[in-house]
């Protein structure tokens, strides 16, 4: 991944507020990178731009040799479907679906014919084989995040983006989830980019990008 002069401004009361100042860095295949910083430092904005979920004001993100800026909204979505897996702070499981159906959903969208089998296998790997038919609300926070991790890895992404994956979990559960995340990351050879303000978690990553008030201060 190449990031070149990436910046984001938003209009507030007629003036432009800079959330992310021009930033450039590269992330190599298989690397694990933590984006750290205090609340409001621009971490989630940067993650959204890296995933093509948002449009930068200036600069470019190159992913697998393609510039996100050159793609339209649907093109970026297709690239995400092909390359990126997500893990969110608030899990983002669909409440009306069971654990198994939540994991199946991105597989089904990508047209996988063995979606059920693959989803079952991934739920077994995250230790939730016996919770497949439970709805999201019937699971604990840790379990929900494990379902989300299974869902993210199920599509074999080249890049896994995680936004505060332990932010909604207690320390013990968070630690177990992180363990699982790194273990799978190693096994699958996925590039991992995670946003966190947890220094312990950041320390486990190969590299740290530190954001302060929209400025990238270290790790470039």
């Amino acid at each position, binding site marked *: 991944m190449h990031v070149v002069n990436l910046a984001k401004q938003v209009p507030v009361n007629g003036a432009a507020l800079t959330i992310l100042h021009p930033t450039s860095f590269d992330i190599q295949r298989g690397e694990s990178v933590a984006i750290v910083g205090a609340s409001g430092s621009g971490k989630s904005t940067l993650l959204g731009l890296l995933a093509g979920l948002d449009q930068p004001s200036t600069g470019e993100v190159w992913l697998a040799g393609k510039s996100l800026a050159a793609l339209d909204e649907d093109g970026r979505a297709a690239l995400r479907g092909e390359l990126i897996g997500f893990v969110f702070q608030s899990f983002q499981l669909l409440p009306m679906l069971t654990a198994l159906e939540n994991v199946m959903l991105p597989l*089904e969208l990508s047209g996988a014919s063995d979606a059920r089998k693959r989803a079952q296998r991934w739920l077994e790997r995250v230790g939730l084989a016996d919770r497949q038919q439970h709805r999201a609300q019937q699971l604990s926070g840790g379990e929900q995040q494990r379902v989300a991790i299974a869902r993210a890895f199920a599509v074999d992404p080249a890049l896994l983006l995680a936004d505060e994956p332990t932010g909604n979990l207690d320390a013990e559960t968070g630690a177990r989830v992180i363990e699982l995340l790194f273990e799978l990351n190693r096994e699958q050879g996925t590039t991992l980019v995670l946003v966190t303000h947890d220094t312990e978690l950041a320390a486990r990553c190969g590299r740290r990008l530190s954001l302060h008030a929209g400025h990238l201060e270290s790790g470039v």
Partner: protein
Amino acid sequence: MNIVTLALRMLLREWRAGELRVLMLAVMIAVAGLASVNAFTARMQLALSQESNRLLGADLVLASDHAPPPALAQAAQQRGLSTVQTAQFPSMVSTDAGSNLAEIKAVSNGYPLRGKLHIADSLFGKDRVTSDIPRPGTVWLEARLANALKLKPNDTVQVGYSRLKVAAILTNEPDRGGDFFNLAPRLMMNASDVAATGLITVGSRINYRLLIAGDTNAINAYRKVLASQLQRGQRLLTVRDARPEIRDVLDKAERYLGLAVLLAALLAAVAILLSARHFLRRHLDACALLRCFGASQRTIVMLYALQIAVLGLLAAVAGMALGYAGQAVLAAMLGRMAHLDLPPAAVLPFLQAALAGLVLLAGFSLPTLFMLRRTPALRILRRDVAAFDAVGAATYVAGLAAMTALLLWQVRDVPLTLMVLAELAATLLATALLAWGLVLAAGWLGARSSGSWRQGLLNLRRRAGGSVIQVAAFTLGMLALLLLTVVRGDLLANWHASLPAMAPNRFVINIQPDQAASLQDFLRRHDLSGAKLYPMVRGRLTAINGREVDSARYADQQTRHLLDREFNLSYADRLDADTDFVAGGGWHGDHPGPQFSVEQGIADRLHLKLGDTMQFDVGGTPVSARITSLRKVNWDSFRVNFFVVGNTDLLRNTSASYITSFYLPPAKVSVLNDMVRAYPNLTVIDVSAILQTVQDMLERVSAAVQFVFVFSLASGLVVLYAALAATRDERALETALWRVLGARHRQLWLAQVTEFAAIGMLAGMLAAAGASAIGWGLSSEVFKLPYHFNPLLWLIAIGAGGVGVAAAGVLGLRGISRLPPLVTLRDI
């Protein structure tokens, strides 16, 4: 994976999770409501028209001044229709005692095709229904002819060259209708005897009628064929043409039933609008997530459009089944109550209802769906990213257009539909403005109160947008319910009042001026008082604005027919106090200046307007005057009505006879015999059969409308439920937060009751205003009945609105307030 399969899987999953319940219920109830109301009203209308066709003796009549070619009857028979021909002509009939003009009707076997003949064995004997016709060589006479010629059964009467035996007294023939006042008394004979009488020769004025009856579709198809082949001197008659009373009552019946369909469709539309919006709102996050997973905008639209389509189809099928059951129950209940045999239900209304449900679903969900596809994937990271702006009025243009088209298509009564829609739009606009103002006022009041009251009222203000939408939804739901209950009751009561149980059932004509006083005295003695005598002058319309009237210039055959006959004119100083003037402002018949007051229908037919001059030939004397007023006449009131009334000075010196009408209780029928003996020249016209038909129709339509409206009520309740469900999540979250912040159960309860009651009362007040306006509009413009303001409506609406919405709201949130707050917070 195939997108259709994926959409179906997602639908199945959502179904299991209970996400689709409200939308499914709304579409199902909408289709069921429309299907049952449509199918039932179609059956009802068919039954009413078949019933009223008895007054025509057939379903379709071809009247002709020459014998209809036999090919016409054969063609009808080939279509499976029954036919019978009659011939009618005036002729003098005589006995040794004297002679009298009679209106002779020659009939053949099978006559009448609809309705029954009534005959009596003696002049004043009790009559009975018969399926026969006069046998060859015999005749049946109307009592006044028998009276005039002093004939009784078994006597003989000379008709042309034939001497025929009187076999019975004819007391009622179903198609006696037409213009009572122009007809001589009836003599009915067998068609096979006509040739021998020698009365039908070249140049005779014979009125032939080909009576046709049978299956409605075949009748309608053949009517079109006949209409396209009509020759000069031929015209098609329906009961509406033949009897204005029946036309009026059928029109009103259709409009009442149309109103029921309209409200059912309207409620269906609102229920679908609210639930489709709710469904799509709940799927915002799912869409953002799908975008993260790489779904294209097209995929998202396809996924949800397919889900909605399949859901709609399933709901429509279920709705049709439920609708079938519903209309069957309605029909069974009504059939037993009103003794009306309803024809079987047709398939079309069910398909129409299903299509209507799907059109509404598409109209209200597709615009939102197209906006949904634009949900930014970033929303998954940042909840503050606005995604949904579907509240904008423009989004619903497609839905509103679909609804309007649907209503026009379903009701097929453009003035009724447009009027209700226009008043509804005005009510909604006023609702939005007023609700906005009142919500702000509630906020102001809340800021100045304390405790839970304060929170409840302030909540209204905090959720201003949502509150206005909710007030509007409740207003619409309650408005429809008010129209269904209170206003409908008022409308029906007004209709009943216009046709009292003691409406006149006998007309007496040919009263000579010197008999007037003594006849009135006679009627008073027999307790038939109240009967007013009106002068009646016969005149032919000869000129309008100085230009000679030529009936051939009018395209409409009814108008030509009308102009070829004499009008019955009257004169008066004053018209009845409840006369409804539509132009000219009133009547001053005591003013010496020549003037006419004309009935609006005839004025429209002859293109007459205020200030035009009409000239009549009254017994050889031209009588001319300007039109100074136009009046509405309720023909189904059964009172003596005239197309044209002149001022007293204008017509006083013409030769007039008098006419009166009164209610004759069945127990006093013998009084008529005394009257006819005392005044042999009088002609008594019995309209009790027609009156009975009109009253039966009124009763049946009232009963039908009651049942139909009860069914529509279900749709109204779904609307209210959908309106509550729309904000349930938000309220649940708020309740949980309040609990977390330490609010006690009672405080929560009071705040909720205050907010819901305020919403309910606001909606009730606005709904009462809307319902009053629509009620007035319907009454005066559509049903042509006087409107009485009902203050109770406001009390009921505000009271029931406040209590009902508070109770429903608190009940709906009861489960939530009992749940531990953490459970609620995790669920949402």
